[in-house]
């Protein structure tokens, strides 16, 4: 099958729209056709918004017809993970407890994209409250990986990753708290980018762990990542954690190359038991490419990163147990029937409304914050966080970027890790450290395993230095020319 409009990059489509070669409505119809063809098998969307999307696309076409200048996100089909509040459009966070919830306001990222003429095709499936690494924790059933329907797309933003990988959206937003953008991007063969903590406003996002939650992007290439980031980044007075520093235009300097750039290779991580040989080989080959392009590569290490996973699984549940206290069955969302008094109603609502993993983490967080245990667990984890931050600072004195696999493995089979939470948690072992430190990191596809599944290459940068991360990613992407597509798409009739 030849590529259709829905398979192109946003920058290609934007150029065609501006030149009058295609209309936004054509791009949208191509995308909606693809959704009709594959969504039943992939279960990517929880809510589809085609009616509204047609209106939005029509407005863009009218502006182009009037020869008004439209921006780089105008007319481009977008999907949002179902934790981004969208006014008048159901937003569930993949949870039964929010199944009936229709937000009365828009989150800032969507507000900014909407102002730029973006076309929203739907809200994507995800692990409940963004807690998970496989999308199997969605209350509405798992997403399947377009590369192999028996495998998971990763998580928690699995629906957004699968949508972009399968042409059901040209780009998408997700959230990354422990790797929930980069890991599914890796498993689905797309670009997943998490900028610096606070770079993108979280106003209107359903919170999981507030000191760790980041908004991130899913795109087909690095240029698109820079484009959509530029459209949504920047200070927002409605989010107290939003960075006051002005956000640069991330497309500038993308093609400056990597000559003389110092790349730190996470050899310890590559040597970890559990890293698949194909992943190790592919990542090493990508490092060689960077050296071929003029960068230098040396072994880097983050001595306390081994403790990052433990720290994360104390800090994130602690914050989630506090954030999710608001779901009490009183003001919005699901309420369990019966219940003699308020306490009983709260307990029954939460017991029936939350799924296993969410309950597990609320319990874990409640325990580690409870009297007598706070210092031993949460307090210690916060100290480890300091040590990991110091490790990064130290490493970035020697290196401009650090590189590693994004995840130890390619996509795993549905059900493979659901009975073993610890095994599931290990899937995020290489992505968690950059969430603890708040530093920018990207995953780009760097090859396929022998069984035809994508492998992700992670590039981590200094705080606030998205530009270098994107520059390295762009150089590597141009050199690797990863062009494989999910077999599912090849099998579609045009």
């Amino acid at each position, binding site marked *: 099958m030849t590529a259709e409009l829905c398979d192109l990059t946003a920058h290609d489509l934007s150029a065609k729209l501006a030149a009058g070669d295609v209309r936004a409505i054509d791009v949208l119809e191509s995308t909606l056709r693809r959704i009709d063809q594959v969504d039943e098998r992939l279960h990517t969307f929880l809510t589809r918004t085609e009616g509204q999307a047609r209106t939005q696309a029509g407005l863009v076409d009218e502006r182009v017809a009037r020869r008004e200048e439209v921006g780089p996100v105008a007319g481009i089909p977008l999907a949002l993970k179902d934790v981004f509040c969208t006014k008048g459009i159901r937003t569930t966070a993949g949870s039964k407890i929010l199944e*009936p*919830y*229709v937000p*009365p*306001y828009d989150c800032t990222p969507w507000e900014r994209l909407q102002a730029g003429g973006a076309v929203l095709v739907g809200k994507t499936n995800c692990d409940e409250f963004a807690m998970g690494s496989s999308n199997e924790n969605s209350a509405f059933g798992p997403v399947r990986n377009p590369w192999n329907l028996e495998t998971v797309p990763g998580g928690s933003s699995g629906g957004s990753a699968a949508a972009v990988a399968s042409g059901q959206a040209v780009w998408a937003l997700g959230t990354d708290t422990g790797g929930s953008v980069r890991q599914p991007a890796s498993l689905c063969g797309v670009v997943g980018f998490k900028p*610096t*903590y*606070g770079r993108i406003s979280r106003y209107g996002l359903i919170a999981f762990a507030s*000191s760790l939650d980041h908004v991130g992007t899913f795109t087909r290439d690095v240029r698109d990542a820079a484009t959509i980031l530029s459209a949504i980044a920047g200070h927002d*007075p409605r989010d107290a*954690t939003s960075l006051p520093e002005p956000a640069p235009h991330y497309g500038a300097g993308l093609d400056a190359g990597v000559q003389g750039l110092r790349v730190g290779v996470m050899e310890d991580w590559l040597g970890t038991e559990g890293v698949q040989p194909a992943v190790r080989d592919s990542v090493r080959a990508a490092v060689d490419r960077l050296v071929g392009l003029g960068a230098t590569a040396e072994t880097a290490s983050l001595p306390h990163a081994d*403790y990052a996973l*433990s720290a994360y*699984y*104390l800090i994130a549940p602690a914050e989630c*147990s506090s954030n999710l206290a608001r779901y009490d*069955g*009183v*003001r*919005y*969302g*699901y*309420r369990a029937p019966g*219940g*003699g*008094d*308020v*306490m*009983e*109603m709260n*307990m029954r609502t*939460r*017991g*029936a409304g*939350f799924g*296993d993993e969410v*309950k*597990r983490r*609320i*319990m*874990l967080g*409640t*325990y*580690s914050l*409870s009297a007598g245990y706070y210092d*031993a*667990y949460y307090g*210690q*984890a*916060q*100290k*480890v*966080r300091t*040590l990991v*931050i110091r490790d990064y600072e130290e490493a970035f004195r020697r290196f401009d970027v650090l590189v590693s696999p994004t995840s130890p493995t390619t996509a795993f089979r549905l059900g493979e890790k659901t009975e073993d*939470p*610890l095994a599931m948690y290990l899937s995020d072992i290489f992505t968690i450290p950059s969430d*603890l430190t708040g*530093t920018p990191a990207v995953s780009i596809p760097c090859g396929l395993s022998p069984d035809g599944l994508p492998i992700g290459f992670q590039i981590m940068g200094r*705080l606030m230095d998205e530009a270098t991360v994107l520059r390295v990613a762009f150089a590597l992407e141009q050199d690797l020319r990863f062009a494989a597509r999910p077999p599912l798409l090849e099998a579609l009739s045009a």
Partner: protein
Amino acid sequence: MPVEIDVQHVARLARLALTEEEQERFRRQLGLILEHAENVREVAAVDVPPTSHPIPRSNVLRPDDPAPSLSHEEAMASAPEEESDRFKVPRVVEQE
């Protein structure tokens, strides 16, 4: 060794009604997760300050300008139960 936790007590603190099967499963799983997580104690020395936030900020304020907020109808629109334009809940007092 897996950590022993009082699941019923924690579930009540967390306002979660759990089935007996869930209590047993979470007791086992949380014990294992905490056992693994305990290694944070190996490295965190007393002289290391805790980090609560990757980019520390304090006293983030915005101008106190009045602006329109949600209407009463919008705020009530998703209420599971309401009466006379108010959120309705089961009785709060007289629990004993």
